[in-house]
């Protein structure tokens, strides 16, 4: 009870969110989902209002809350929509929001690459397969998800545990010098330190702070430190394309 009283701000949105997601999952006849939508909005609002800490800069915060809200709500709508085509479109929305978050984290190349690869290639091919395979319209298996209550319960227990670890409670946050994983804000002394003291294996080429977040820095890192991994990734792409051709349905010879 005492524990619950201390952590009700963490438990409450988990319960509300689990209820909303389980209720929104397709099961049987379509039913009115207004209550579940409102409860889900409440849960997302509570998480956004209490667990997330504003960083100080108004524009940064506004963009972060916008992108993360769109990402989370789009994710809920994606996994609960009864029509897989709309699911794919909501996934595109999630992808755009996540690439916005990448931009905020000074990763412009990854943001554009994510938009191109996911929204440009993966979503389009998924929609093509949907068009090929599901021409009958609404199907029975899309209307009946498999044990939504149990899966949602499990998922939100996992989420609650993760958030419990990530979000420091009040008495933990009071003593300031926490180092390592739990240190929440990069301190100026930490960043300015010579990097090999922080226990992270440091790269050999010039991927330090002055190159951070630029194409130059990413290129130096990819083709300098991780050159063999890049070669391996290229080989992986080749093998995957050959495999896709082999696995894809055979057609009779002479027909494309």
């Amino acid at each position: 009870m005492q524990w619950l009283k201390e952590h009700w701000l963490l438990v409450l949105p988990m319960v509300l969110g689990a209820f909303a997601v389980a209720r929104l999952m397709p099961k049987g006849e379509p039913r009115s989902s207004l209550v579940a939508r409102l409860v889900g909005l409440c849960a997302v609002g509570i998480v956004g209002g209490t667990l997330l800490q504003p960083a100080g800069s108004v524009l940064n915060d506004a963009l972060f809350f916008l992108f993360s809200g769109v990402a989370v709500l789009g994710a809920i709508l994606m996994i609960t929509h009864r029509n897989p085509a709309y699911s794919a479109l909501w996934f595109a929305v999630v992808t755009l929001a996540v690439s916005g978050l990448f931009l905020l984290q000074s990763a412009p190349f990854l943001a554009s690459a994510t938009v191109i690869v996911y929204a440009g290639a993966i979503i389009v091919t998924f929609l093509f397969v949907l068009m090929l395979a599901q021409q009958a319209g609404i199907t029975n298996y899309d209307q009946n998800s498999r044990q939504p209550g149990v899966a949602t319960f499990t998922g939100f227990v996992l989420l609650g545990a993760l958030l419990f670890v990530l979000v420091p409670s009040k008495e933990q946050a009071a003593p300031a010098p926490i180092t390592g994983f739990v240190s929440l804000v990069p301190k100026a002394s930490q960043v300015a330190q010579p990097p090999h003291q922080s226990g992270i294996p440091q790269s050999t080429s010039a991927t330090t702070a002055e190159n951070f977040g630029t194409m130059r820095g990413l290129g130096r890192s990819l083709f300098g430190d991780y050159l063999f991994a890049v070669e391996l990734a290229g080989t992986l792409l080749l093998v995957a394309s050959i495999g896709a051709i082999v696995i894809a349905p055979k057609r009779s010879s002479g027909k494309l």
Partner: protein
Amino acid sequence: MIVLTNYLIVGCILFVLGAIGFLTRRNLITLMLSAEMMLHGVSLNFVAFSNFHQNMQGQTFTAFILTVAACEAGIALALILTLYKRTKSLDVSLWSQLSEADIDSPHEEEPAVPTTPPAQKFPQLTPAGRAPQFQKETVHRV
């Protein structure tokens, strides 16, 4: 000043929602999309840590995640098309006989939902101009 925990929380939420979608949905394509959303959550964590430590390793790892996701999507779509050719359905429950023989099938009998789509109201344009005259003779049936 960027707070690391915010991004980790959003990444966690995306990962867990993707996991829930992967466990519950039965359409093969929605399963794949949910797995890709779990990858989104993971790469958001990587990029947040990359910014936190001010080095490029997280971003490099995210670039590799993108590569693997592209490979995965290609092979998964080929697999899905092959499976669809066998069963003429995208239902993943039809493949539950691939599991161990002595485990009960998770597929439970459910009342069939009427699959007729709800009556959709299409917008109607007001007629403008002269109605074209169709010539029935010119229509060729192949």
